[in-house]
């Protein structure tokens, strides 16, 4: 069946939304039929989020019309959208960690029933749809996948006609993704339409009936995902032909102590509700890339802090070429050849209100020699910032612009470029291609491999398995603050990786209660 066979549940006609300086959606039209799983596909910044925000009543279109079940539909706020049978699961959850599941669900409802009745309904719905969930558990104790179930169940209790899901699988293990897909297929078979936002093409091929592809705010194509290859869809999304990254010729480096050696690294988390690191050991030699996978919140941030020097440990826990650095701060490690790009770009890797020039100084001061006797050489700093901007295609009006004025993807390119341009010996990156479009992601991966070919040891932490398998030589999983033994990437299957990641978190427990 194709989209046109079904009576359209939601029809969007000629919707346009402009923000100062950017047109987020230009004349977008598409429709979703009852029981259809419809993908909205596009790079970051293509306008997917703005489009669904209009459907969910968070943003008002400048022009264009929408109809829902044949009637004109113009929700003034999310409450109106929910009343019309539209529900949305956001990429970032809005849950209170200190409350239990049922209390969180009640907070999101217009007229919550008494708690006892609500708990019963949560059990019922979670059982009906194969989403194991115990209404009495504290949300703070739940895995990311379970938290998402809370959000989904909250939506399902409202009996939606249209369910919008924004990047739902970015926090899930492969096994959890399967559970989610079963639920979505069941919902669709009962007549609920699902609008599914993602840029993961294989998922869309296996799940969706139809896809609308957006590029720079416009609909550039519609297709039936099953009939296209992932590459064809990616090229429609990007509007260009993509090539996979190339590895430089493998060179033999003189035998030395490893560029990065981590031995029995244990540290309490400095982050509230964080995950402590528990005797992590690995080593990375020159020219090697270690990929570390794992669902967010399993110690990625803490590991990054311990490697970059923000979190200090016993001296021997982190060594580089035989030199103990565990007790040294970030600047000493930079002098020793380390560069690092933490996950949170705005506020951690970059200062939001400072210019790109100042942000270039932030980490470049030492390795690029931007200060003399403590006095800043602003000309050299500006020059460094502008070279990064040029080399990494950072779209900005100039180097004097505040970091927060850049889009997430462009800031990402700047941060990664700033670190990779410092001829490093050890590269530490958390989520290298977070928020960047497919062509920029390819460029970043290529740049990482180039640095590795130049002799850098690379540690990449990412939740994107495809990315890790593409660039890493060896692969390990961080789970609950422990790192699995790194294994060579060659010959590793997705199922094995899923099991390394701990399978579907909390399944058994939840079933036991249900």
């Amino acid at each position: 069946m194709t989209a046109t066979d079904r009576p359209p549940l939601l029809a969007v006609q000629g919707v346009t939304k402009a923000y100062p300086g950017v047109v987020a959606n230009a004349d977008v039209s598409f429709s979703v039929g009852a029981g259809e799983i419809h993908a909205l596909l596009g790079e970051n910044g293509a306008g997917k989020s703005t489009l669904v925000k209009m459907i969910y009543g968070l943003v008002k279109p400048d022009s264009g019309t929408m109809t829902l079940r044949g009637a004109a539909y113009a929700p003034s706020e999310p409450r109106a959208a929910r009343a019309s049978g539209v529900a949305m699961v956001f990429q970032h959850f809005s849950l209170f960690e200190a409350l239990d599941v049922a209390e969180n669900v009640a907070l999101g409802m217009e007229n919550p029933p008494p708690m006892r009745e609500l708990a019963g309904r949560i059990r019922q719905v979670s059982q009906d749809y194969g989403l194991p969930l115990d209404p009495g558990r504290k949300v703070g104790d739940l895995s990311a996948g379970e938290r998402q179930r809370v959000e989904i169940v909250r939506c399902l209790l409202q009996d939606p006609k249209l369910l919008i899901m924004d990047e739902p699988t970015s926090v899930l293990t492969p096994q959890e993704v399967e559970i989610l897909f079963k639920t979505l297929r069941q919902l669709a078979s009962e007549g609920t339409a699902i609008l599914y936002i993602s840029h993961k093409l294989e998922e869309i091929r296996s799940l969706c009936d139809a896809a609308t592809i957006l590029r720079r705010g416009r609909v550039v194509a519609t297709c039936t995902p099953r009939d296209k290859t992932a590459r064809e869809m990616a090229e429609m999304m990007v509007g260009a032909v993509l090539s996979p990254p190339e590895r430089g010729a493998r060179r033999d480096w003189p035998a030395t102590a490893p560029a990065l050696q981590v031995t029995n690294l244990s540290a309490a988390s400095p982050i509230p509700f964080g995950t402590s690191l528990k005797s992590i050991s690995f080593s990375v030699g020159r020219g090697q890339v270690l990929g570390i996978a794992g669902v967010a919140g399993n110690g990625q941030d803490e590991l990054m802090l311990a490697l970059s020097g923000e979190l200090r440990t016993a001296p021997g826990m982190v060594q580089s070429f035989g030199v103990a650095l565990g007790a040294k701060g970030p600047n000493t490690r930079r002098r020793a050849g380390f560069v690092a790009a933490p996950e949170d770009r705005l506020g951690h890797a970059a200062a939001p209100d400072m210019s790109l020039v100042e942000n270039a100084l932030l980490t470049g001061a030492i390795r690029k020699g931007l200060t003399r006797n403590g006095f800043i050489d602003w000309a050299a700093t500006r020059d460094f910032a502008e070279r990064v901007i040029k080399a990494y295609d950072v779209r900005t009006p100039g180097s004097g612009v505040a970091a927060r004025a850049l889009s997430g993807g462009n800031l990402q390119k700047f941060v990664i470029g700033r670190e990779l341009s410092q001829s490093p010996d050890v590269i530490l990156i958390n989520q290298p291609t977070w928020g960047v479009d497919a062509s920029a992601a390819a460029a970043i991966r290529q740049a990482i491999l180039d640095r590795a070919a130049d002799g850098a040891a690379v540690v990449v932490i990412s939740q994107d398995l495809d990315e890790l398998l593409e660039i890493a030589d060896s692969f390990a999983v961080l789970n609950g603050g422990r790192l699995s033994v790194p294994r060579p990437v060659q010959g590793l299957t997705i199922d094995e990786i899923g099991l390394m990641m701990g399978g579907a978190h909390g399944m058994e427990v939840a079933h036991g209660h249900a």
Partner: protein
Amino acid sequence: MVTLEKRPSPSRFWSAATPVVAVALTMLAGGVMFALLGKNPAEAIRTIFWDPLFGEFAWYLRGQLLVKAGPLILIAIGLSLGFRAGIWNIGAEGQYIMGAIFGASVGLAVFPTDNRLIFPAMIIAGAFGGWLWGMIPAILKTRFNTNEILVSLMLVYVAEKILSKAALGFLRNPEGAGFPGSRNFNSYPAAANPELIAGTGMHWGVVMAFIAVIFAYILLQRHILGFQIKLAGQAPRAARFHGVNPQRMVVLCLGISGACAGLAGVFEVTGPAGQISIDFNVGYGFTAIIVAFLGRLNPVGILLAGLLMALTYIGGEMASTNLGLPAAAIQAFQGMLLFFLLAVDVMTNYRIRLFTKGAA
């Protein structure tokens, strides 16, 4: 409906225009207040802003301008570094008092020796006294995670008690017939901080304030430490990532601002005030907070703001003697300045958007 929308980048125009607009609004609102008090608003504003500079007694009052502006600028420069780093020293008044007591103690201890090293030694002791008083909240914060705002503020009252004790006890003039207050430094040349050019009000403390302005300007514009101070205030996590040690930053900023306040205190006690007395402190340490913000935490801005604030002090005194305006009205007027400044300051980072109802 009116909403505030965050600007993509801070507005340079509003950043520069804020103090001017704030002063203009203060004049307007102040004028209304003076009118309600039954005074001629135009005359009151003229008395405050114009007469000290160009009026009948300007020959004397112009000199007073630097005398009042000097300590305000010196203290505000020190405070501004901490404020930039997000470290809130509210206790400059106490550090100012302690600087004066430490400096005066050194001078009085060697009275009546004549040696050209006495005055420099007193200055160093004054800076040390202020620094020491700033170190108390610094160490309590780094060791026990106390709040520096509360601790530094409460230490002002401790310093005031010590000041009374000094004026009535250990620093009292033995030849003063039992009156409270120390010997007068103006009659002890080796320890005095006289007017350098007659009629200008210029003394070593004012020179020091100008040096502090230049020093702070270079620090913030050109030096990595200035960059780290700004970074620590704007993005604490990015600062740690850069390699800033937050504890060190607390010690450094409270130390610098304490030392600056201490310097202002010792220059004041050896010069314009002349002696340690019970009512030696007149609120420079608190007013400097307004000066620091009025100057947008920028050294040159603080220089101008210090002069403006000194003007409202002198003009305010004139207005209360000549026009019979209550002192509280003058204080309210100065408070309005900070109020409007903070209100207008919103425009730097936000713009006002007007919506017709329903379009939001």
